[in-house]
């Protein structure tokens, strides 16, 4: 039960940061996305984001910084195994599941639903 609460709180805090950026800055959603992923990469490389995932579980790994974290960790692992070439191959290998799922489910949703005018 504790895991669920922590995932809710940690994931929620990340989203609140995003909402504050949307409301108080002129940053476009695309820029906020890039900022979040890049922040995840940096914090992942510095082993800071490990703490977020340790406490927040999926609340830390599902939001955008979690994707950046996976990129960083996969690159580090690949570099250890195959040398410098891992910097090019590791990121995509480690996040392949997430990327393919995004394309697959995006495609399915596009088939099922049509865009509607906002309320």
């Amino acid at each position, binding site marked *: 039960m504790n895991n669920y609460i922590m995932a809710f709180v940690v994931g929620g805090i990340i989203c609140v940061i995003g909402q504050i950026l*949307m409301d108080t800055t*002129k940053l476009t*959603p695309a820029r906020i996305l890039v900022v979040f992923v890049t922040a995840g990469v940096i914090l992942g490389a510095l082993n800071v984001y490990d703490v977020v995932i340790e406490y927040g579980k999926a609340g830390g790994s599902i939001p955008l910084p979690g994707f950046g974290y996976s990129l960083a960790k996969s690159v580090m692992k690949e570099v250890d195994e195959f040398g410098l070439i891992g910097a090019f191959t590791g990121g995509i290998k480690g996040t392949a599941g997430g990327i393919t799922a995004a394309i697959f489910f995006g495609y399915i949703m*596009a088939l099922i639903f049509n*865009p*509607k*005018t*906002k*309320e």
Partner: protein
Amino acid sequence: MGRRVGLQTVEIESKPRIIGTYNIVGPKEGQGPLREYFDKILDDDLNGTESFEKAESSLLYTAISESIKKAKLKEVDINYLLAGDLLNQLSSSCFAARDLNIPFIGLYGACSTMAESLSVGSMIMEGGLAHYVVAATSSHFSSAERQFRLPLEMGSQRAPTAQWTVTGAGAMVLGKKGDFPYVTHVTTGKVKDYGIVDVNNMGVAMAPAAVDTIKQHFMDTGRKPSDYDVIATGDLGIIGREFTEKLLLEYKYDMKGHYIDCGEKIFDPKRQGTNAGGSGCGCSAVVATGYLFKNMLQGKFKRILLVSTGALLSSTSSLQGETIPGIAHAVSIEFGGE
């Protein structure tokens, strides 16, 4: 023949009459405070088509063909169709004109198109070059959203200063005879750019253009705000309207009691969540052909000044960080009061 007065104004002597108008709006506009002034309110903003672009084109087609019917004319009687919209290559207008048997001139003035097409139409009539002219324009929330902001599929949030593009189309038929409201003056605006880059704050970006055109209209004609029952800017919204009023006061033109903004009038922001108000070519078109025109017919307004305002940005220019140039055209319409 008409004559030039002052720097930017033309006096239209032949007084081309607005002999038929028609407007059609989406469901949200139909729930707004001006609902009783619309000729047709759609239940479905796709209007039975498969895309929002096709829907917009069908709205424009309906407005044009119904306005011609209201004027008891046929398509072949119309010498010029002057129309424009917000989409790339004026696709809504071109695709509507494809199905109409009328010589077509496409105009791009962004949301200023209603006053722009009415200005050019009046000048063609004044030159004696046409018996009948149709001036029309359209916009659609969802097609504009896709072109200028973000795809609807993304479900992105709207900024508090953002305006809501009106889904609607309006058309006016100009003719020579009859007891109808008529155009007396046309003031063509200059492009003004005060360096606003925020696409979510277009009302303020367009306000300097509106101020410039209104001020110039008064200087050219010697009129003042109180000579008009209503001065209506196109789509400055609440923020842009307040800004315009303040700037005009600095030039000693007190607009109080004579000034409305079509974008502010068309929605109820509290109830409808439209933030700063309505925008889009359709905004001043449906308010002009609805609220303003119908009140003129009833004798409530005797003299009005329609000042449609346009933000002349493109989706490329705003992504490249360019500022937003604005434009405003003014048309003075009278009926029943001399």
